[in-house]
């Protein structure tokens, strides 16, 4: 029996990591392009005279869902040309595809696609580039700075959104939220601190080195729980902090079990009543992200495609997964909370 459970966990972790690599996590790693689509992508029939929107993206389901929602919104105004980016795609192939359709704007999904586009821009330093809208990639603000004529929508769910969601689910107070971060995440954490303050939530950050050990992470979490007296902990989508099942057990599970604090996570796999860890997962709502991207495109179109100075937007919409068993046992379930949860597990 024990062996079976252990095997289950290994499988679950394998899938968890694959999910991270598929682009759900803020890892800085580039992937997602290698996954095959569940169904072929078909563009709506082109109409004479309509401007063309060029969408370059991997063909895995999350990207397909965003595209579907985006295309449904904009297809009356634009012709759509979709270019599937895979592991073999080169910058030259991407640039010739763009040049072939002369788009009024390009939409680029995931870091791999953006890297190819950057190579294209660097190879053509004097060419006029179409405006670019960046979606579903890590640290889009930093990517934007490296591209000409680009804006977009960040993929990381803002902490404040997650904290407000937690407040609507549990009765326990959520005034101080702790977060452990590595140096690469410092700017992100600083921005989250200011946003959280708007909702009267104090974000309490503790930094750890890049090569943090399980013991180091446990100490940081212990510090947040016992010394800094936080009301909840927010786990960043950083693969180095959730590198494998053993690491998570040794660091997160050990310390959070002891601390008995709500843990907010960014991937649904970490919310599982059979193996309690995350209390609440807050993940991007991909269909709504497509609508937000459509809004952005209409906005840019109305402004003659002036993307310069257009800041990267924050994602507006999320979905929630809650471990009800954990909530009921430790933090209290707010009346009416069930009406507002996307997936309640127990």
């Amino acid at each position: 029996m024990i062996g079976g459970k252990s095997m289950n966990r290994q499988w679950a972790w394998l899938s968890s990591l694959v999910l991270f690599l598929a682009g759900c996590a803020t890892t800085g790693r580039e992937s997602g392009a290698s996954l095959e689509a569940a169904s072929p992508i078909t563009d709506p029939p082109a109409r004479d005279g309509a401007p063309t929107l060029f969408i370059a993206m991997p063909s895995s389901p999350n990207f397909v869902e965003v595209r579907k929602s985006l295309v449904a919104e904009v297809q009356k105004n634009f012709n759509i040309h979709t270019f599937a980016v895979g592991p073999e795609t080169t910058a030259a192939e991407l640039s010739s595809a763009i040049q072939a359709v002369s788009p009024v704007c390009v939409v680029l999904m995931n870091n791999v696609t953006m890297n190819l586009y950057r190579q294209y821009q660097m190879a053509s330093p004097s060419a006029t580039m179409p405006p670019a809208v960046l979606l579903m990639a890590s640290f889009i603000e930093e990517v934007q700075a490296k591209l000409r004529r680009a804006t977009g929508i960040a993929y990381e769910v803002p902490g404040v959104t997650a904290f407000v969601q937690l407040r609507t689910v549990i009765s326990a107070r959520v005034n101080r939220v702790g977060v452990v971060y590595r140096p690469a995440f410092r700017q992100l954490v600083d921005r989250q601190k200011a946003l959280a303050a708007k909702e009267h939530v104090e974000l309490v950050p503790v930094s750890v080195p890049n090569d943090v050990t399980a013991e180091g992470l446990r100490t940081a979490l212990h510090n947040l729980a016992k010394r800094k007296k936080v009301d909840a902990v927010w786990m960043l989508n950083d693969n180095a902090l959730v590198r494998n099942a053993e690491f998570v057990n040794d660091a997160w599970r050990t310390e959070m079990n002891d601390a008995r604090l709500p843990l907010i996570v960014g991937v649904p796999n970490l919310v599982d009543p059979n193996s309690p860890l995350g209390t609440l997962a807050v993940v991007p709502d991909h269909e709504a992200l497509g609508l937000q991207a459509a809004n952005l495109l209409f906005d840019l179109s109305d402004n003659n495609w002036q993307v310069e100075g257009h800041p990267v937007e924050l994602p507006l919409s999320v979905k929630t997964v809650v471990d009800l068993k954990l909530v009921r046992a430790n933090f209290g379930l707010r009346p009416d909370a069930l009406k507002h949860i996307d997936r309640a597990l127990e």
Partner: protein
Amino acid sequence: MANLTTRRRHLPQPIAWLLVGLGLVYPYQPLPRATAQGAKPVVHVFLHLDAKSSVVEKMLQQSLPDLGVIVFGRFRDFEEGLTNGHPDAVLSIAPVLQQHGKTASLQGQRGGKSTEPYLLASVNQPLQGSLAGKTIGFVDLLGHDGTQAFLNGLLKTTDIKVKRVAKVEDLLPLLEFSAADGVVLPSSMLARLLERTRLAIKTRELPGGQVGLSAVAVLNPAVRDVVVRSFQKLDTPTKRLLGIDAWSVQ
């Protein structure tokens, strides 16, 4: 595409998780739409309420046993359903019914009124004076052009930039992120907004701001009686969820 929960009944959990990880099964894919059983008249519902669509659907299905109820959370899905699903009746608010050329057979009422004021909410101080050039958030009830026209009418100006969001709860991030100067919402949704946030929300009523409450349009005259009778028998909690306390036959 299959729903994870459904799959997990048939597959060992590790395999199911692996499928999720590989993107072969996507846990957030909406459930396949319920289809009406037997000869039940089908009602399509499109309302933005203080509850997830799945919760509203379950509640209405339980309260309307003689009808097949399908609740849509997104405008595009609703439009597609209306075009391809051929419902027998539609439950929505007046502007949505009007945009699709439908006439209400049953009009919801609250406190004896069939309309409610819509409010313009903003942070720290109410948005007074001209709204020209302002960015205003609103739930996507009527699509890109329809929502713009609807808000132009409510706000009595054509010089606003509209940011549509997918759900009522997404209006709050617009204010938190200063992504909009204000958001428009039904007065019945204000309490929920205030409950969720610690921002200092200020409101003002809109000049053209009375909007019809939930209403039922019967599209298939052959089933009018059963549809009307079923909705008239709705219990109080369900009517409250719909934002009404009574129906009037039109």
